[in-house]
């Protein structure tokens, strides 16, 4: 595969390689590892090497049937991986494609002697190098030995030495923990008290922390470095954090390439990173983070990640350089000049991409979904996803990125004031997700760039760019649309203003109507003036060589299109956008499969998406990739430019789904179910009357415009009720109220209820089972379907629920009715394509609570269990092909799949780890088993639970739950594990002849007589006596600080398994009871489950 080197390359290739995935998506470890793992598998397959993958994340592309030769949906930990090695006997192991999870597992496997025992060779970066980069003390020593500057620091193994170190270095100091992901357990301590708290928390989960010099106000710069075994080195790109040092790079707004570094700065740091990586001996890819002094020629090396990372996924998408693919080839022993550049096909991989555009990454947070969480940003990651925007102007890219976040921003500046002037200073000083918007507002209020720089430490050049946008907006405000000059309109577009944003900025007599009409007016005016965006290619070489690339973006800073529409007319698939709570890698699986299905049917495909951590944005996933916004404006631009014959809106989750109606109204052909019918399902009013017509039951609901109306409705139908305001001021969008008082406090404090912002109140049915239907229909006839059940009763968001498929405990009658209802709805809405219905059932009485005419989160799960690709069926149905239903039926299965949620509460300081009607999980896994208990146990082990050995702490809440748990408590008693219980639970169990050790709850001393020697629950956790907490709260919707909250939080902070749902707790105990020996958790590849 060499290019011009002429000599034949001989390498010692392994024959079978084991690849470790990263498991569920979590904060700090997200979709980027699906991209990197998939690329690695492709790179190995091309070499004829057999691949074995361990990854319990069933929604990923890398676990598709046609990628790895064997897939194990098992926890990525030494126990299971050893058994996979024993079975598969691989001779090679790739650790750098599955994030910190894979790396940690690899290090442990090595330390346990397992790799040596089975003669498995670690490919790529050697383990010793990994250990050096992971151990901060060792790392600092290495840096010093080669005269590289690093922050002054001391490694500490206890609190005392941490305090000493801080005195030596002087406050404020940075506290970091070794072996962590996403900066977990790190922060800035300004005094002894803060340090004590931080250090104790960190030392509870890791053996060592680092106390170091805090570089306030320094710039943060990163380099992505690639090295091969011949010692050739390149840096694929550098990136400059717009936020100064102190905010984790995953939490920072980042621009590539750097904008305010001179050639001296850029290449000095580049040379240092190369020298460092050569010294460390990395083979493959790694990331070097620097601090750069803003006023002096000084730098510090912050850290090296000797593996593919979130930044490397970003760098790969930002430059078009297939980093993960190349890294896999280098791990096999190839050199950089042996691997062709798969983008250009004509040049080598040994080069550094030249960008002729600028790229901005913005993190996507979802902190509003959590109760009690701290919203300030710092050295720990909290974001759940990210967006990447490309432009030929900084402002253009920045404004795109703001819109891509999907948080309601129309761009960098909005039409109205969002912040009070007196709050602005704090908003600038304390970084939160609002800060970038606060900068715009401060500029508009006349604050100087210098003042903002002093408060934020953000380099003035970036603040000036925001100012550019603010000034343009102020200029637009002077005109109405008709009098807006061509020059100003063009300038606005060059600065990244959307039509929508312009429509809101122009002067108008009457307030703007909701909907798309106003922005379409701007569009029409623009087209009249001939102001249109151009299409540009990302070719890695800034047009220096001709390159056939399909990686595209649009810009107003240009006059010529790089590509033109091609025949045959393509189909456009809309991707899912930023990963966030509720929309994640599962929609990427759907989008990628949609493109593949279209292509199998012989069509050309165009993908639109802007999430750098996805496979759908890989250059080889479709015929043309637009790294672009999923807005009406941009989708229309692309649709028109590509002469597309239709758009698929139903595989990318809610963002594309919401575009169905406006696109249809503008004459775009929307594939599948008719737009009017989508509207009938989306519009609550219309859907409700449709259900009434069909005789299908639904919970009572009403849309109301005052708190009084809401209260009287609730009184009529009876509490509890579910409240969904249309305008939320703070906190979660949905809530359950059990009383007038709760309803009032929620509606008054958190939401605005008025004629403009109605609230939907519906009857909340407690104690019901929740069931999901995933189906595909064609012309109203069901082609395929899957019925899964939730382990948790209704009330837990379906994204947080544990799902069992095929359903195991449903009455036949219930199943039959669900099928009947689902068929009726398909027929009534004349559905063609994917759809999902959520039901609740109590005593065979079934109500529909939700219906979406799009692929759901569980499509990959049910597709992979059934080994029937629902997206493939959906696409073929939408194309009008004759589609035969699958021959298999779920009833014939002698195995079961369990999908379990992954929570990231430990990363969200202060958040109450309770489940409720708002989704809180950041990812999911699914495991297979011969029975539900086996699959469930594997799934929980995959999301970080361990089998309890030390002690179990019980608090079982309400009396109904206490009774419900009684059987489980008996089982626990026989398991030979110490069982602790809090007072109420202890007393109840005692009455039922079950002995437990009583523990005090914090703030509840009154439950005990003075002088009682009962230990405190918090203390028991801190002492390491507990390794499982079952804490069933009395109420789900309490916001106040309770003793239960303190225990739950402590549990999460100590990385201990926590169950807060009674049904899940019962199933877990059942599983522990039935499966006494972990060897009963079978290590079987996916292929053998059929």
């Amino acid at each position, binding site marked *: 595969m060499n290019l011009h080197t002429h000599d034949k390359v001989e390498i010692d290739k392994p024959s079978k390689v084991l690849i470790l995935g990263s498991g569920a998506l979590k904060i700090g470890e997200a979709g980027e590892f699906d991209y990197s793992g998939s690329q690695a598998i492709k790179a190995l397959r091309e070499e004829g090497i057999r691949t074995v993958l361990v990854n319990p994340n069933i929604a990923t592309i890398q676990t598709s049937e046609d990628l790895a030769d064997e897939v194990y949906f098992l926890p990525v930990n030494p126990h299971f991986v050893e058994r996979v090695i024993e079975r598969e006997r691989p001779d090679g192991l790739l650790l750098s494609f599955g994030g910190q999870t894979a790396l940690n597992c690899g290090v442990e496997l090595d330390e346990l002697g397992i790799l040596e025992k089975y003669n498995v060779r670690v490919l790529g970066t050697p383990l010793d190098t990994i250990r050096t980069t992971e151990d901060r003390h060792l790392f600092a020593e290495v840096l010093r030995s080669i005269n590289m500057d690093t922050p002054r620091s001391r490694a500490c193994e206890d609190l005392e030495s941490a305090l000493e170190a801080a005195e030596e270095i002087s406050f404020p100091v940075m506290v970091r923990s070794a072996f962590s992901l996403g900066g977990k357990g790190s922060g800035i301590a300004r005094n002894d008290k803060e340090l004590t708290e931080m250090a104790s928390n960190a030392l509870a989960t890791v053996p060592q922390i680092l106390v170091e010099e805090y570089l306030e106000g320094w710039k943060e710069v990163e380099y992505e470095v690639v090295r091969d075994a011949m010692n050739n080195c390149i840096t694929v790109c550098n990136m400059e954090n717009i936020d100064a040092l102190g905010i984790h790079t995953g939490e920072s707004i980042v621009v590539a390439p750097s904008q*305010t570094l001179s050639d001296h700065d850029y290449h000095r740091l580049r040379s240092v990173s190369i020298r460092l990586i050569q010294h460390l001996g990395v083979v493959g890819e790694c990331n070097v983070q620097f601090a750069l002094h803003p006023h002096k020629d000084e730098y510090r090396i912050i850290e090296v990640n000797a593996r593919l990372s979130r930044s490397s996924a970003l760098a790969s998408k930002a430059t078009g350089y297939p980093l993960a693919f190349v890294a896999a080839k280098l791990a096999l022993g190839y050199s950089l000049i042996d691997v062709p550049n798969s983008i250009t096909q004509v040049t*080598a991989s*040994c080069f550094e991409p030249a960008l*002729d555009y600028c790229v901005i990454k913005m993190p996507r947070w979802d902190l509003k979904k959590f109760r009690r969480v701290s919203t300030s940003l710092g050295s720990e990651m909290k974001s759940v996803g990210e967006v990447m925007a490309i432009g030929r102007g900084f402002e253009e890219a920045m404004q795109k990125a703001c819109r891509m976040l999907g948080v309601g921003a129309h761009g960098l500046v909005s039409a109205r004031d969002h912040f009070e002037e007196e709050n602005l200073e704090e908003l600038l000083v304390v970084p939160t997700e609002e800060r970038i918007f606060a900068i715009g507002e401060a500029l508009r209020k006349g604050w100087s760039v210098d003042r903002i720089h002093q408060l934020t430490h953000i380099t003035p050049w970036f603040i000036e760019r925001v100012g550019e946008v603010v000034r343009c907006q102020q200029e637009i405000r002077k005109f109405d649309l008709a009098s807006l000059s061509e020059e100003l309109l063009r300038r606005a577009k060059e600065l990244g203003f959307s039509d929508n944003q312009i429509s809101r900025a122009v002067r108008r007599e009457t307030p703007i109507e909701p909907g798309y009409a106003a922005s379409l007016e701007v569009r029409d005016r623009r087209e009249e003036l001939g102001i249109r965006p151009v299409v540009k290619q990302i070719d890695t070489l800034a047009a220096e060589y001709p390159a056939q690339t399909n990686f595209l973006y649009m810009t107003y800073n240009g006059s*010529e299109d790089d590509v033109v529409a091609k025949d045959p007319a393509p189909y456009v698939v809309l991707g899912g956008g930023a990963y966030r709570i509720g929309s994640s890698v599962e929609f990427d699986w759907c989008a990628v499969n949609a493109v593949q299905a279209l292509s199998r049917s012989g069509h050309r495909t165009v993908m639109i998406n802007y999430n750098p951590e996805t496979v759908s944005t890989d250059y080889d996933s479709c015929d043309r990739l637009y790294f672009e916004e999923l807005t009406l404006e941009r989708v229309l631009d692309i649709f028109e430019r590509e002469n597309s014959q239709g758009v698929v809106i139903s595989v990318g989750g809610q963002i594309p789904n919401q575009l169905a109606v406006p696109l249809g109204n503008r004459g775009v052909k929307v594939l599948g179910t008719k737009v009017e019918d989508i509207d009938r399902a989306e519009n609550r009013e219309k859907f409700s009357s449709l259900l009434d017509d069909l005789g299908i039951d639904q919970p009572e609901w009403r849309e109301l415009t005052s708190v009084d109306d809401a209260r009287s409705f609730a009184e009529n139908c009876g509490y509890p009720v579910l409240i969904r305001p249309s305008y939320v001021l703070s906190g979660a969008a949905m809530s359950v109220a059990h009383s007038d008082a709760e309803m009032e406090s929620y509606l008054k404090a958190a939401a605005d209820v008025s004629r403009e912002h109605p609230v939907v109140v519906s009857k909340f049915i407690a104690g019901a089972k929740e069931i999901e239907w995933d189906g595909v229909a064609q012309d109203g006839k069901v082609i395929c379907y899957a019925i899964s059940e939730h382990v948790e009763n209704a009330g837990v968001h379906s994204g947080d629920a544990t799902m069992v498929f095929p359903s195991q405990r449903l009455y036949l009658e219930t199943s039959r009715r669900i099928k009947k209802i689902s068929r009726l709805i398909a027929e009534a809405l004349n559905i063609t394509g994917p759809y999902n219905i959520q039901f609740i059932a109590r005593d065979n009485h079934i109500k529909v609570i939700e219906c979406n005419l799009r692929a759901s989160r569980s499509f990959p799960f049910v597709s992979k269990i059934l080994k029937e690709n629902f997206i493939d069926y959906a696409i073929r149905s939408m194309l009008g092909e004759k589609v035969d239903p699958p021959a298999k039926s779920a009833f014939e299965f002698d195995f079961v799949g369990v999908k379990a949620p992954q929570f990231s509460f430990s990363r969200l300081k202060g958040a109450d780890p309770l489940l409720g009607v708002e989704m809180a999980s950041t990812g999911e896994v699914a495991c297979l088993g011969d029975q539900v208990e086996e699959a469930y146990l594997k799934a929980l082990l995959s999301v970080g639970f361990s089998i309890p050995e030390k002690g179990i702490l019980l608090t079982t809440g309400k009396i109904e739950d206490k009774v419900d748990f009684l059987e489980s408590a008996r089982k626990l008693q026989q398991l030979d594990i110490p069982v602790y219980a809090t007072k109420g639970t202890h007393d109840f169990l005692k009455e039922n002849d079950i002995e437990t050790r009583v523990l005090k709850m914090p703030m509840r001393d009154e439950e005990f007589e003075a002088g009682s020697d009962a230990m405190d629950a918090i203390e028991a956790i801190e002492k390491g006596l507990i390794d499982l907490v079952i804490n069933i709260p009395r109420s789900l919707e309490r916001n106040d600080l309770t003793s239960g909250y303190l225990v739950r939080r402590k549990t999460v902070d100590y990385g201990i398994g926590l169950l807060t749902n009674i049904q899940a707790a019962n199933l877990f105990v059942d599983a522990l009871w039935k499966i006494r020996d972990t060897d009963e958790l079978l290590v079987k590849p996916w292929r053998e489950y059929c």
Partner: protein
Amino acid sequence: MGDPTLNHHDTHPAVRDVASDSRSVKAILELEDGVRFEGKAFGALKSISGEVVFATGLVGYPESLTDPSYRGQLLTLTYPLAGNYGVPERDPNNPIQDGFESSRIQAQALIVQRLSQDYSHWKSSQSLSDWLASEGVPGIEGVDVRALTRHLRQFGTIKGRLLLEGSDNREQVLSEPCHDPGSYNVVAEVSCSEPILHSCGKDGAPRVVLVDCGAKTSIIRCLHARGADVLQVPWNHDFVAEKADAVLLSNGPGDPKMTGDTIEMVRRALAEDRPLMGICLGNQLLSLAAGFDTYKLDFGHRGQNQPCYEVGSRRCYVTSQNHGYAVDGEKAPAGWQEWYRNANDGSNEGVRHSSKPFFSVQFHPEANPGPRDAEGLFDLLLEFAR
């Protein structure tokens, strides 16, 4: 053709500065084949013509603009944002100041997509636009530089005019043929006029004679950093007669075959044993003197990201380059061999003598702008020199 000896930049008494004009000034870039780009002017308010070229580096506009290799050329930056980090203050007492490659802007004009009037960098004291104005160099922003680059790469180089509305010499530039740096010995224009000794300040330092065909000052800095004195001599100076431990043939603008006098002297140098190294144009001069041939590349190399590997090995360096001609490495004269090759297109990137300490490279080991991966070549030269 204009007067080749006229120095465009030294005297510009009548030239106004665009920034002093309150409204934006329209500028048009017109290529000789009729292709036009419209934009806004910045820098000096004057029209100009020359060869239109591009550079794909992400950073380093002060270095590129002062690189004598861009003499007579209108420089296009493919990275669309220019001026972000401003321009450092010029130190009049330091002729080899870091951040600049010669004493003044060498390019005829600058072509960019978006210009930043404000800048952020602790070393900078003026905006890119003000710097250009102060040196009498015009610029144009708002050009689709990617479209321009795609056009240029097909022609290698093409001449063009930058016409500024309201500039005094607009009509003159329009009526005259385009300035063509390839049509005369442009090296004479950028070379120093008499020998200059740059001492590194150390006793007993080896001395390198630097034949200045338009040398970048980084070459001097690189040699200084390694403890060598540099004697910079004019392109037509008899360097063979100079007392020195090694010879370095510098980079420079134009067609190598225009510098016949230098080639002749190199031939004489090759008859001796004194270490001799060539960079870029120096590589072509040395190769021609040794008996290699040169030819025009289909696609010139104009970036900071060019991979070059050592022939016979798999060691590869990322290098900074700016050239449209290459040495034909396949037909090596007796005693010579190909040394480096470009991993993208296989073209020759350096030659060396089989037994004598003569070697040269097409790329720029002195970097600035660009990666410093090949700086070790200066160590090699000094090893031979010592």
